[in-house]
């Protein structure tokens, strides 16, 4: 890609990632949540990969690592649900609701959001990698 694209990307990738993290962490207070934020995080990596090529992106997050994070995210989410089962009922919100409109409120909701964002972010990046790598292979033939 051209120098302009690379420079702009260098400036914006961090912002997109940061915004994704913000959306995840504020999911229980304002609009957004684990899914939207997760997609944004994935998009920031996709953005980087489109601008700098796959080697740079691979250094940050390889396919194996992305798959690992994806499984980890959904496993954490199931773990939260099963902790509820230990406490009495499947998916019990076992933490206190806390003071409303604070960052640490809503019991397990923020933690579920983080787990989901891991799952979605890493998962979608894996999908993108799989599809892009496949394309490159077939074009080389």
């Amino acid at each position, binding site marked *: 890609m051209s120098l302009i694209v690379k420079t702009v990307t260098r400036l914006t990738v961090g912002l997109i990632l940061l915004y994704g993290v913000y*959306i995840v962490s504020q*999911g*229980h*207070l*304002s*609009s*957004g*949540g684990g*899914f*939207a934020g997760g*997609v*944004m995080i*994935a*998009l920031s990596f*996709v953005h980087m990969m489109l601008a700098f090529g796959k080697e740079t992106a691979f250094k940050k997050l390889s*396919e194996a690592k992305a*798959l690992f994070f*994806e*499984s980890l*995210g*959904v496993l954490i*989410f*199931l773990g939260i*649900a099963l902790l509820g089962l230990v406490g009495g009922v*499947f*998916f019990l*919100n076992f933490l*206190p*609701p*806390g*003071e*409303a*409109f604070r960052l640490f*409120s*809503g*019991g*397990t*909701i923020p933690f*579920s*959001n983080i*787990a*989901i964002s891991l*799952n*979605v972010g890493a*998962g*979608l990046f*894996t*999908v*993108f990698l*799989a*599809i*892009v*790598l*496949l*394309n490159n*292979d077939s*074009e080389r033939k």
Partner: protein
Amino acid sequence: MTMMVLYILLVLMIVGSIIAVEIKDLLSSVVALGAVGLGLSIVFLLLKAPDVALTQIVVEIFMVIILIRATLRRDLESSPTRSRPLGAVAAIGFIAILMMIATTSFKDLPTFGEPAMRVAATYLEQGLSKTGAGNLVAAVMLDFRGYDTLGEATVLFTAVIGVSAVVRRIGRKKANRLKGRENA
């Protein structure tokens, strides 16, 4: 006013989707699809669903990216534009039946803008006090109906594992002791 904008957007979306379906160039089709998704996102905002609008727009971006990736540099020769006659007949037949039943069935639905809200009233009353989450949608998604969200995360997980399984270069190991396999 809201209704007027809503109607205009809906009509634009329908036009956009017809373009996406009928245009010959695949890339333009994907771009038109992106426009429909954008329109949908604005409609969601109009209908007071900011969470959904946000998710819709980022998901639409991702979808368009992977679809463009799939269509990029594919020669047009390989993209047929004609319809399948049998399929078209089936589609029109089904749509006709559906529309016929739907128009009578609409009368049973509550008036637009006045939902019955039997169960939802509970969420509005107890959502904040019981879960402590200011965003009621998050409260519904991750607390009242958290199990659905686990299912949704699982669907995405399944698709990711599925995609990485489907793109494997070699699916079947070579069967050494078998000669002349027909189905390999």
